[in-house]
C-alpha cells in the first residue's frame, strides 16, 4: 500500500472516529482537570525546580494525547512543543545531574543514552499517532537509524563492563533487533 493511500485512509478513519469520542469541550475539560491535579500534586509534595518542571512536562506529555483526540494543525503543533520541551529539559537534567564522569568507558553514560533512546521514541509514539501506526519510508529510516544507535550503545555498555567482544556484539545485535521490533510502526487494530 502506498504512503498516499495510508495517509488518506487515516483521514477517512478520523471522520469515523468522531462519533465515539467525547465532544471537544469535554476533551478540553478532561485535560484541564488532569493538569490541575498534576500541578496540585507537585505543589502539595513540595517538589523543587528543576524536578518539578520535568515531572510537570512528563505528566502533560502523557496526559495530552490520551485526553485530546482532536487532530488538527494546532493540536499537533502543541503536542510537538510539549514533547520537544520535555525531551530537551529531561536530557539536560539527566546529563547534568547524573553523569559526573562523561567518558566513553563510563557504563552509566551508555545506560542513560539507551534510556533516552527508548523513552524518547516511546513517548514520541505516544504523542504522535501517525509515527506509531504509519509505515512510511522516512519513519522506517529513522527507526532503523535509532536501532543502530541503540545497538551501538548496548555494545559500548558491555565493552565498558569488559565483556568479551563476541558476547558484546551478540548482545548488541539482539538488543538492536528487539528495539527495532518494538518501535517499528504497527497498526493498533
Amino acid at each position: 500500500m502506498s504512503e498516499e493511500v495510508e495517509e488518506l485512509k487515516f483521514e477517512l478513519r478520523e471522520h469515523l472516529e468522531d462519533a465515539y469520542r467525547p465532544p471537544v469541550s469535554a476533551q478540553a475539560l478532561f485535560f484541564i482537570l488532569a493538569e490541575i491535579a498534576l500541578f496540585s500534586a507537585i505543589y502539595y509534595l513540595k517538589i523543587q525546580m528543576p524536578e518539578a518542571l520535568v515531572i510537570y512536562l512528563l505528566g502533560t506529555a502523557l496526559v495530552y494525547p490520551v485526553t485530546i483526540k482532536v487532530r488538527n494543525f494546532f493540536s499537533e503543533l502543541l503536542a510537538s512543543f510539549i514533547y520537544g520541551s520535555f525531551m530537551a529539559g529531561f536530557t539536560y537534567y539527566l546529563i547534568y545531574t547524573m553523569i559526573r564522569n562523561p567518558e566513553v568507558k563510563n557504563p552509566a553514560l551508555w545506560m542513560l543514552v539507551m534510556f533516552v533512546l527508548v523513552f524518547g521514541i516511546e513517548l514520541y509514539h505516544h504523542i504522535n499517532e501517525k509515527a506509531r501506526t504509519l509505515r512510511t519510508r522516512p519513519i522506517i529510516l529513522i527507526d532503523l537509524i535509532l536501532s543502530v544507535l541503540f545497538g551501538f550503545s548496548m555494545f559500548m555498555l558491555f565493552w565498558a563492563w569488559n565483556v568479551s567482544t563476541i558476547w558484546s556484539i551478540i548482545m548488541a545485535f539482539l538488543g538492536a533487533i528487539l528495539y527495532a521490533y518494538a518501535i517499528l510502526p504497527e497498526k493498533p487494530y
Partner: protein
Amino acid sequence: MNLVYFYIITVIGGVIASLAYYLVRKKRDPIMATVLEHLTRYYLDERFFSIDKVSEQLQIPKEVVEKAIVKLEKSGIVMRTKRGHALVDPLVFLTPRDYERALRLTKGDNIIYGAYQLPYITDLKYLSVQTFLLLGSFALLIATVFNIGGINATVQSWARGVDPRIFALFVTAICILLVDVIDNLEKIFIRGKYSVIVGVHSGLLYDISMADELSGRISRGSIVKIDIDINWRQKLKNIFGEVPIGDVKIWMRNRKEPIVLRSLPYPRELFMILRSLQLGSLEWRKRYARELALWRGRVYPFIHTYRGRRRR
C-alpha cells in the same frame, strides 16, 4: 545546576520540535482535501457519483475535480465502475495479505468491512502483565531515588558500580521495550486467529481457530438479530484509547445463543453494515436516514439510552 540554562534549553527544545513538525508535515492539496471531504460526507454509503455531479456540487471546474479523482483512484481510495465512481470502503482494517486472502476466499466479493477481534486489548490478565512490568520498574526507580530500605547498595552490586538511579532508569527502558514487544506479538497472534470480514454477497465470515480460512460463516439470510455491547472497559478505551472497540452479538436462525465477536474496531459501523445485510439492501442509508443524520451529527445512533440526545 543553572536553572536559567535549564529553562532556556527546555523552551528551545519545544521550539525546535514545533518547527520540525511545521516543516515536515504533509502539505495537503486543498482541492484534493475538498473533494475527499465532499466524498466522505456524501458518498460513504456505496452510492455512485460522477465527476460532473461532484464538480457541480463543489462548484469547481470539471478538469480540476477529474484530476483529483484520478489521483484518488490511483491511490485506491476511489473505484471506477460501470455505473460511475464509488468510494472504497474505509472500514477495511486488514493487512494487505489478509485483504487479498479475504478477496480470494469470497471469490472477489465487495468487502465492506474487515477487521480483527481484539479480545486481549481490555483483558485484565493481559493488562496486568503490562502494568506489572511498568509499575515494577517505576517502583524500582522510586526506591532507588529515595534509597528505600537501603536498596541502593544491592542495586549497585547488580549494576557493577553504576549509580543505582541510572540502573533503575535502564531497567525502566527495558521494561517499556518489553511491553511494546509483547503488544506486537499479541497482534501477530490476533491476526492469525481473529479475522472478521463482511462481503456484500458472502455475508459475515470469521476465523474460528489459528490458521483457519474464515470457516465461520453467517449468511445474509440467517441473521435474526444484531446487538452492540460496549462494556465499561471498552467505553473507557473508546474515550481515551486509540481505536473505538465494542462487542457485536449476532443471533442466527435455529440457534439460541448469539455469536459474539469481541472487541471489534468501529462496532457501530459493523452493526450498520450487518443490519443492511440482514435487510438485504445496501441502501440502508435511505432507510435509516434519521439515524444516519444523528450519526453524522456526532450522536450515538444505535444505543437506545443515548438516542435523541444531542452531544454537540
